[in-house]
């Protein structure tokens, strides 16, 4: 739980980069049918009698707090329940449309072959183990609860009442017990063998066998064989799965495969983002440069224009002054000539008297 903000952001970056690198190796790009030898549980809904022995065993094995009503109180079944932090598994009762005894269905984590919770978790707190169970590592969980949103079966729950170390909790398929060679708690407790534990491949074979032996008593479908890309928990039933609250709209594609095409765009976007930004940067830089150049040019031309204008003006002025000078000179000459002529005339007028 102790994770610094810096580290968190760093991991996000790492995930982003990882996504760009791994590319095709991502789940969903090939047909995955589960790990060989993976284990699972077959729930024969037609055998379940709603005794809640599985709930009791689960409570005991996982050391959960005891519920308000005892496990042999059948009134609990009147209400539709979901998994909680204190009940990793619940049994719900459904009306039998064939006018017979009600049908009971056990709800718990289906331990998908390609789990949505695993693909939604960006810190890899959930992991699909090779053996079958989907296991949770509380030490890396950041409590984002994406897994709860992602799960198509609404299984993971969150310890909202724990203010300091809240965890996401769900059925573990009793992974620690399985490791020790024991049966999952619920399977061991079931008095009617409505739950059968074994290799998933064997369970599928067994389920098909049961359906073909008693074709009137079962719907010819194993729920979980292909749903959401296949689940480790499998179900066979005598009534339609949709009549006992099981989603039939999930399709056969696993969640990672569904999100893969959309999420594969993320690395592309992530990859393109720097290029885009660099482009933007480059463009703005170029624009600045161009503007600078234009400014310079404008100044130059302005200066030039001003220069030539001045020159022409000067030339004109010079010419004009020259003309004026010439004119003045000419006038002066004229006046000089006129003055000389007048002087000569005057001289001529006065001179004869003096001589006489």
């Amino acid at each position: 739980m102790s994770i610094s903000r810096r580290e968190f952001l760093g991991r996000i970056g790492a995930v982003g980069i990882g996504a760009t690198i791994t590319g095709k190796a991502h789940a969903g790009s090939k047909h995955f049918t589960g790990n060989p030898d993976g284990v699972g549980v077959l729930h024969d809904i037609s055998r379940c009698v709603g005794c809640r022995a599985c709930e009791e065993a689960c409570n005991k094995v996982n050391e959960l707090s005891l519920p308000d009503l005892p496990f042999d109180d059948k009134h609990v079944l009147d209400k539709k329940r979901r998994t909680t932090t204190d009940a990793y598994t619940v049994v719900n009762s459904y009306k039998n449309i064939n006018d017979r005894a009600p049908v009971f269905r056990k709800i718990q984590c289906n331990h998908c072959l390609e789990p949505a919770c695993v693909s939604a978790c960006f810190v890899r707190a959930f992991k699909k183990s090779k053996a079958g169970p989907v296991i949770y590592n509380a030490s890396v969980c950041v409590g984002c609860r994406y897994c709860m949103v992602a799960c198509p079966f609404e299984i993971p729950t969150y310890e909202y009442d724990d203010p300091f170390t809240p965890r996401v909790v769900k059925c573990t398929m009793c992974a620690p017990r399985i490791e020790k060679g024991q049966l999952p708690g619920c399977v061991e407790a079931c008095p009617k063998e409505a739950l059968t534990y074994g290799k998933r491949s064997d369970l599928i074979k067994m389920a098909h066998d049961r359906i073909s032996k008693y074709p009137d008593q079962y719907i010819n479908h194993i729920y979980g064989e292909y749903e959401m890309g296949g689940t480790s928990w499998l179900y066979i039933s005598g009534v339609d799965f949709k009549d006992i609250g099981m989603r039939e709209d999930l399709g056969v594609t696993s969640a990672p495969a569904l999100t893969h095409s959309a999420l594969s765009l993320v690395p592309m976007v992530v990859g393109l983002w720097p290029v885009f930004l660099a482009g933007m940067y480059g463009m703005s830089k170029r624009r600045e440069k161009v503007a600078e150049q234009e400014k310079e040019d404008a100044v130059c031309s302005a200066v030039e224009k001003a220069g030539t204008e001045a020159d022409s003006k000067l030339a004109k002025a010079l010419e004009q002054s020259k003309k004026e000078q010439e004119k003045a000179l000419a006038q002066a000459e004229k006046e000089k000539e006129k003055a000389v002529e007048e002087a000569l005339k005057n001289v001529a007028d006065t001179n004869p008297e003096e001589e006489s």
Partner: protein
Amino acid sequence: MNKAKLLLFYFGITFVVTLFLICGLGANQTGNVEQTTIPRSDVISIDTISRFGKLERPEVLFLHDQHTDAMEKKGKDCKVCHQSDKGQMSQKFMTLKDEGAQALIDIYHGTCIECHKKTSDEGEKSGPVICNDCHNVKSQVVSSRQPFGFDKSLHFTHSEAVEKKCERCHHEYDEKAKKLFYAKGKEGTCRYCHKDKTIDNKISIKLAAHVGCINCHIKTIAEKKDAGPIKCRGCHGVDEQKKIEKKKSITRMQREQPDTTIIKIGQDIDTRMNLVPFDHKSHEEYNDNCRGCHHEGLDTCSKCHPITGIQEGNYISLEQAMHRIKAKQSCLGCHENNKQQKECAGCHSLIRKNISYNDSACATCHIKKDQETDSKDGIEAIKLQSARLLKSRPLVINTFNAEDIPEIVKIKDFTKKYQPVEFPHRKIINTLTNNIKNNKLANYFHSDKGTICQGCHHNMPLTKKPSRCTNCHGKPFDEMNMSRPGAIGAYHIQCMGCHDNMGIDKMGCTDCHKLTEN
């Protein structure tokens, strides 16, 4: 570098938020709106015009009984809407022949709207006059119409009412004279000729039944006699169907059928199996009508299904016709269905549904021929021989003597929580045998001592002292034999499975084993 990471993070967040918004909006749109619906048995969908082309508006859901009742109140009868031809009331509305789309539209719009307007002008409650009120897709009415069948009891009532004048209903068609005639001894059920849809001049069973039944009922009512229903609900209503009296003592239908016979296999065939004597009379009692077995006509089975299949019988051989477990007309198919009765289902629902190819089961039907010769020939000889063979067959449920059957079997405690179960072994066997005492089929097949024991003591030979449950059922999830339940599972599956199928309410934990006192 840090800046770039931050940017990446913000982009990611925005992307995810957008995705959630899109998903959220999408999820809101998939909510189901529940509509309250009114079930009715008289819903007729008027889509006659669709035969002449595509419908421009949605078809009209017409409530027939609502209109009949309204007419009745006004003292009017069927003639307001239905015309008659040669004394037979037509099923069509205001016409005898459909003459194209426009003609039909005019008839419907003209008559319906006119009448609705007139009625409302008179100040009475009336029907719609606006297009969408009739051509309405979102009608709240749903059809609860039940299919109606003519069973033995009804046949008896009708044959009594018409003083056994079979020709009142049964007829054949003369191709040359192009008319219907009655052929004595050729009677069959209506459906042999009148199929689901009208083919050439053979009108559909729906039309045939409505024309035939309703016209006769109307005439009988006109004669002020007791008659059958003329309204939809009379035959097709859920509650009304229950009110139809089931006659208990019914005189047997006479159609030259034998009391007993030997299943014919065809001429001059060297058979390797013993032939099967068949109690025809008893089987008539078990079935509601002849079609249960004679699904296409009242001929012998081997006419269409000889030893090797022929085209007329869809290449189904006699062996298949008699033994197909999934066919409801075959011997084994029908017998298998019988095992679903509560008295049988306790054991049989847990026994795999298949044909047991063993000598004793085969010999129950394929009885060995006796050496006696009959003085008579032909059909009479067959009748006599088959009757004698059937009589030779043991008709008794056999089981071991009471003292050989343990009275109480103690099933030890597997957990500390509960006390051992005291299983009333003998009482259960007695109940099972008593339950099927009056079932002839069960009697024939449980005549071996120990057959009844095999309901629980399965997968082992019939003996007086069969193995105990725990001899085979031990630890659960035996990897070598996954389909074999462990001891606890086996007990619960067997006991509770039987209780469930027999409708026994002992399903709680403490109904069988008491809690340990401490």
